[in-house]
Each structure stands twice: as C-alpha cells, then as structure tokens.
C-alpha cells in the first residue's frame, strides 16, 4: 500500500475520520486550511452505466485513462465488478422479491412505510463497501469514490486529488508531482 499520499490528513478533510470537536478551534481551523491546500481536487472521472443487459444497474468496467497512473487496473475492475454484483443482487427478481411484492400488494403497499425493502438493505451494504474501499485502497492513492446513489445511480464519480506537497505552501496551480507520487 502506498503511504506517500498523506492519508490521515486527506481522510480528515473528507470527513472519513472525525476531527477533534473540542480543543483549540483556531489551531484546528488553521490545520483544515492547510489540509485544503495540501489535498486539492484536480479532476473527476465518471464511470457511466452499461445498458447492454437492459435497464438493470450495471457500470462499465472499462478502465479510464486518467486513472492509469494512479491505480492498478485489477483493483479498479474488482471494485466495479463487486458493485455490479451488489446491484444485481438488489434487483434480482426471484422467489424472495415475489413474496415481498405479493405481501406488499395485499397490505395496499402500506408495508413499505414500515419495512425496509431488500433494495435498501443492499444499498446500505454498498455504502459500507465503498467506504471500506475508499479507506483501504483509494484514499492512499489520492482517489475518492462517491456512492452512485448520490448521483442518481447514473455514474460512479471518482475524484482525483493532487498532493500539493508540504504544508503551508499555497501554490497557484496544482502540479502532478511524479517524484512524490510513488
């Protein structure tokens, strides 16, 4: 795992790790400012939907060229394939979904107000999986995956962050520091 990217500081800016709520606000404030400068958003890549099998939720596994220098192809493909499997599980029509549908119909669909549907349960699993992937694989490489549900299930948004280098520097433009990246 690459530790060159300031993972903990990056995670704190993105709210992945809770910051110190109390304490010296001025000092904390100063650190956050420093972090915003040190980990700045450079680009966003959007993985589009794959409609070859119909309207079920699937994302393309084609590896985008912008990520070539940041992450291994296999890791990326694994993530997308696992997400596709989760969505397929959520949208699967089979015995359990029929039972849920018939039960819901007999109660005039009021059951949807009290019960959590299978889809929602799988969405929670997906959210947990994405957070885990972000912490273990993507954040150390300066990337961040946004849950597709926050983008209307249209795209998987991957934000690419550039490390500005040491703290306190406020350079005008972000630069790809090849030497410090690996």
């Amino acid at each position, binding site marked *: 795992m690459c530790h060159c990217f300031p993972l903990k500081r990056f995670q704190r800016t993105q709210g992945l790790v809770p910051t110190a709520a109390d304490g010296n606000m001025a000092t904390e404030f100063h650190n956050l400012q420093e972090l915003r400068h040190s980990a700045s958003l450079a680009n*966003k890549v*959007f993985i589009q*939907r794959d409609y070859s099998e119909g309207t079920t939720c699937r994302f393309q596994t084609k590896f985008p060229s912008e990520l070539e220098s940041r992450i291994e192809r296999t890791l990326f493909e694994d993530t997308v394939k696992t997400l596709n499997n989760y969505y397929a599980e959520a949208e699967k*029509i089979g015995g359990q979904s029929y039972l849920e549908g018939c039960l819901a119909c007999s109660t005039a*669909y009021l059951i949807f107000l009290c019960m959590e549907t299978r889809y929602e349960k799988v969405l929670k699993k997906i959210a947990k999986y994405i957070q885990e992937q972000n912490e273990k694989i993507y954040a150390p490489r300066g990337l961040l995956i946004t849950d597709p549900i926050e983008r*209307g299930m249209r795209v998987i948004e991957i934000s690419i962050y550039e490390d500005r280098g040491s703290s306190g520097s406020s350079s005008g433009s972000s630069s790809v520091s090849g030497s410090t990246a690996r």
Partner: protein
Amino acid sequence: MTSCEYQQIDPQALPTPTPAPPPHHGNDRDKREEPKRPRRKWQVFPGKNRFYCDGRIMVARQSGVLPLTLGLIVITSGLFFIFDCPFLVKHLTSCIPVIGGGLFVFVVITLLQTSLTDPGILPRATPDEAADIEKQIDNTGNASYRPPPRTKEVLINQQVVKLKYCFSCKMFRPPRTSHCSLCDNCVERFDHHCPWVGNCVGKRNYRFFYTFIVSLSFLTAFIFGCVTTHLALRAQGGKGLVFALQESPGRYPFNHKRVLKFLSVFSLISPSSNVPMLSLTQPPTAVELVICFFSVWSILGLSGFHTYLVASNLTTNEDIKGSWSGKSGEGVTNPYSHKNIFINCCSVLCGPMPPSLIDRRGFLPTDESVQTAGAGIELPPLAAKSEINVEVKCLDFAVSCTG
C-alpha cells in the same frame, strides 16, 4: 497572522449571508453558522413539484383533477353505504358493506400512494458531470447556437436503442426514461402523466397505479351491481312500477309527472328496463348508477389496456410511439421483455421496489451549497459557471469585509 487572513482563504465563509457584520474571530465561526439552519434537499429541488410535511409528501405542481377523482370516489361510496347498504343488508347479506368497505379503503390508499410517491425522478446532473459529458460530445467547440439534438446509441439485448440528451437535466437519458414537461423532471420508465392522479406514473409508482385502477374497476362494478340489485329488489318487493312511481309523490318540487309519463312509454317498449324508472324515486341511487355506469366501462377498459402493457412489459409512452411495434423496421422487438407473460407481470408488479433517487429529506452539506463555487479559489475550475460564481462571491465578501 490575523484571523482575517483565515477568512480570506476559507471558501465556506464566502456565501454566508450575514445580516449582522461578520465577527472577525476564528472561534466565532461556528456561532455564525448556527443561526443558518441546514437546508433540506427538497428546498432546492429544481423540478416543478410541491413538497409538504418537510419533504415527506410530494405532488406535481398541477394537481390536475385529483380532487375530482377523490371526490367522485368518496361521494359515490358514501352514497352507497348510506342509502343502499342498509336495504341490502336487510334483504341480502351483511357481507356487502364489508366487501365494499374493504375495496373502498384499498382504492383510496392506492390512489394516495400513486399521487404522493416519487414516480422515479432522476436528479439532474451535477455541473461536473454535465461538463464531462459536454467534453465528450463537443467536437467543434462552437457554442454560438444550440447544437442539433444529441443522441447516443446503445445495444440492449441485441437491439439498437437511441438515448437522447436531455437539455434540462444535462444528461443522456437512460433507456425508457422520458422528460415530463408538466413536472419538469426526467422520470425513469416513464409511463404517462396522469391528470386524474395528479402525478407522473413511472418506475416507482406504476404498481400502485395498476393496483388502483384494478381495484377501482372492482369497486365500481361492485357498486353498480349492488345498486342494480337494490333497485330490482325494490321493484319486486312492491307492486312493481306503479307502486314505485306512487311511492313518494311529493318528493320533487318540479313537475315530474310528465317526465315519468314519457319514460313510462319507454318502459312499455323495453319491459326489462324498470331499473331506470325506479332509480328516479331514489335520487342518491340514481346518482350512483349514472357515475358507475360511465366509469365502469372506461376504468375496465383502462385496466385491460394496462394489463396488456404489463404482460408485454411495455409503457404507455412506448406503446403510443410504437417504438417496438415494428413500424420503423423489421426485427424490432421489445428488448426489455422477458418473453414470458408471467415473468413480465411479476417483474413489473412484484419486482423489488427501487429507492427514491432524489433524497428529498437529506440535508444539503455545507460544502455542497458552495459546490458551485468550486472547491477553492486557487483550483482550476471544472466548469465555467463555478468560476463566475467564485468571483461574484469573492466580490460580495470583499464588500462586506470593508463595510
């Protein structure tokens, strides 16, 4: 290093509209943000929808004739329970109000669910997404006129499907998605915008809509049958037509005798039509009869049509446009159909319930409200709009700082 310097580079401070002059202390920053309550996403929803109960209930901007639909159902059922049920319970069985009551409750609940549920609205593309799509399709770079309609072709189950670009939502519409001009939203698996229900019918509420029209056809047929039975029993119970006509002579203020005489001629021609005659003596029953007679055919017809659509996994939109009927060419089949009526029905009506994508009760994150301002001043802007917004906000802040 004064605290003013922090504020200059803090993007979160920029769009905060402070009625009082902003205090220049770092530790007052959270005090300044406290009076500004976090807003929910429904409050900034771009489509033409109205929200109630803090975003729990949503309706289309134009409620159409939903009050009329609800009124007709409630009034007809009310008249049925008040005027017909007592007679029928006495002469037939007490199951009748039970069945009628059950159907009525079912109809009203499914109607409300169809009207008040998110039909499957797709949230609009974020500025970054829109810019990315523009980059992919813009070759000439000519922005002086609206370019020709953009389409993208995809292959779905060996069938070529054209995806259109939605200029309002700034994205390529997924298959079977259509933009409703009344609601100004892209709706997934768009069926139609139903004025009776006052909402679009789409992926999430199609099953409610189908259940509503099927149960409504049962209800109207049931009431129609009961009303006819009621009148028939009354005719048999008395001395027939003459008794029924003489039963309550003073009920009508106008001269009804001529009307009755005219209609009695009609009754001689068709002896089985005592029912229309009798209904005149029971005005509430007459009202129910008229409403049910006209509704039952139209609702039954609609139910039949939608049953056909469900069995072939089509939407009203596709059926009307003839997308898969083979008009445009040979070998055009519906790529979404499972080729089995039972599986089609089950997947449409009993499939998993997809979640609402618009998350109307979610809170707007504080940095998302400045999303248009970009992630920072020094960053290369990802969309031209964000650059302009940042400049404006910088200017506002500079003015407020000096003032």
